[in-house]
């Protein structure tokens, strides 16, 4: 009896805690997205007399979103989508090949090279940004897509994920294909890469989000209005003294919405591949 009551109490407490956390995590986003659909004059009106109208809009409008799409934000959306998809394609290709090489081939200094490559991606970006900017300027890359894409092409974590996956494939398969006369290129492209679907999905998500969220480097390397990216555009909406909250909220909501699409589609692969749990 006593044991059962205690267990039920613990269960209730657990769900209460989970619900509380749920509210804390979801409410800011909900409030934010909901407010972007309100007329500007309504956004802060109902905070004073807190009630149902604080959380449920009485008047819905698209005026904020229309204003956002008429601003430089449309350009930013296009730029970010272009930069992200290009980076994903390039980065999956380059890093999976490197992962394949580190997993399958034997060559001198392999382990040392691998550690050096991994370590290089743990260095703080601040310690390379000054030379990176100087070089980009010298090469005329500042304010081009190249400056946004190329430095992000190589990614240590992605190399690591691919290496782990390719290591798990029995070596006999490679040997058998070699005996049958397949070139390494064919083995990589037609045998192992198709097997690595979940890793490709997880890596793509990782790279997409990383690039979509990028702020520091684009702020420095792509400051012209033609090359503005999403996060910089959102930040610009608030850095002016008089923040237009409606426009700020709707631009930020759009930035979240676009990132949520690949997240919701691919997160189960990410969770599995990165080892965060079962799907």
């Amino acid at each position: 009896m006593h044991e059962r009551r205690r267990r039920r109490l613990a269960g209730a407490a657990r769900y209460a805690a989970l619900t509380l956390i749920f509210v804390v995590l979801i409410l800011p986003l909900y409030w934010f997205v909901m407010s972007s659909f309100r007329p500007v004059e309504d956004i802060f009106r109902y905070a004073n007399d807190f009630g149902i109208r604080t959380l449920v809009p009485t008047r819905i409008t698209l005026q904020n979103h229309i204003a956002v799409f008429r601003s430089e934000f449309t350009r930013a959306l296009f730029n970010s989508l272009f930069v992200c998809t290009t980076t994903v394609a390039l980065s999956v290709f380059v890093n999976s090949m490197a992962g394949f090489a580190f997993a399958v081939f034997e060559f001198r200094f392999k382990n040392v090279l691998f550690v050096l490559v991994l370590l290089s991606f743990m260095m703080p970006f601040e310690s390379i940004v000054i030379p990176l900017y100087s070089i980009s300027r010298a090469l005329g890359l500042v304010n081009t897509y190249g400056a946004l894409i190329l430095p992000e092409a190589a990614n240590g974590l992605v190399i690591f994920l691919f290496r782990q996956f390719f290591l798990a494939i029995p070596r006999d398969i490679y040997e058998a294909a070699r005996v049958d006369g397949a070139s390494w290129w064919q083995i990589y492209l037609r045998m192992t890469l198709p097997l690595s679907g979940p890793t490709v999905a997880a890596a793509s998500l990782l790279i997409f989000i990383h690039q979509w969220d990028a702020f520091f480097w684009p702020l420095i390397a792509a400051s012209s209005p033609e090359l503005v990216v999403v996060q910089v555009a959102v930040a610009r909406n608030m850095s002016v003294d008089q923040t237009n909250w409606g426009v700020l909220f709707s631009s930020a909501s759009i930035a979240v919405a676009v990132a949520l699409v690949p997240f919701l589609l691919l997160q189960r692969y990410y969770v599995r591949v990165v080892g965060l749990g079962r799907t």
Partner: protein
Amino acid sequence: MSASDGRGGAPGLGRRLEAWLPQIVVSPIFALSFFFVYCFIGWTIYISFTKSRMLPVYELAGLLQYERLWATPRWYVALENLFVFGGLFIVGCLVIGLVLAILLDQRIRAEGVLRTIYLYPMALSFIVTGTAWKWILNPGLGIERVAHGLGFENFKFDWLINPDMAIYTIVIAGIWQSSGYVMALFLAGLRSVDDEIIKAAAIDGAGPLRTYAGIVLPMLGPVFLSAIIILTHLAVKSFDLVIALTGGGPGYATDLPATFMYAYAFQRSELGMAAASAVMMLATIMAIMVPYLYSELRGGNR
């Protein structure tokens, strides 16, 4: 493409290329990481020993920039903030992440949905998180106003504009964003703990608290380490969050080394001093990473 193409034409050349294949495949990545990272770090270190201001100059000037850096009050504020923010952020994420993971580990319904919700802040940028919390914590517009509306007239919450407290708003927003990820790390770790061990402890009369504190947590050692590494990395580069939430202000009260470095390199044209601050950041990261990597590599090849 059939199995014979690409090999029929010049078998001699093809063979020789194949023999070099590993090097050919690895070299672009290696060149990228070596050139872009290690050479650039070397370059940054070199610049930190010169008089560079707006443009890099290459005449050595000894420790001048480091002396200037350590004579700048703003640098001390940034460093102090890094320790306050970094410490509270890491401990906060670890505690909240661990508690969440233990709660979720108890065979709960709709676990997949819940995990998605806890992970979703991962898809938010620090800029967006900063924007949301800038509003929530804004004295005139956010929770202070809601509390006044609810009748708590004396409720005061001005951390965002209070120079002494503003750094804690960054801690709050950072923990909000990152603890879900830490939870997922711990959850995966808890799942790998053998249920039999927990049952055996229960049979021996250990309560849930003692079971976790005495048996399960020590087994999660490696998870703690990787969580601390990931969080340290986030803490050092939380540039975006500061810019979005406080812009480094009021004044420079919420400056972190990253924003300090940005301001000196790209706004004040003090490349040498900025490089010196970047070297200090690098040293901080290395002090944490090197022992970790050493223990990882000694533990096994994989």
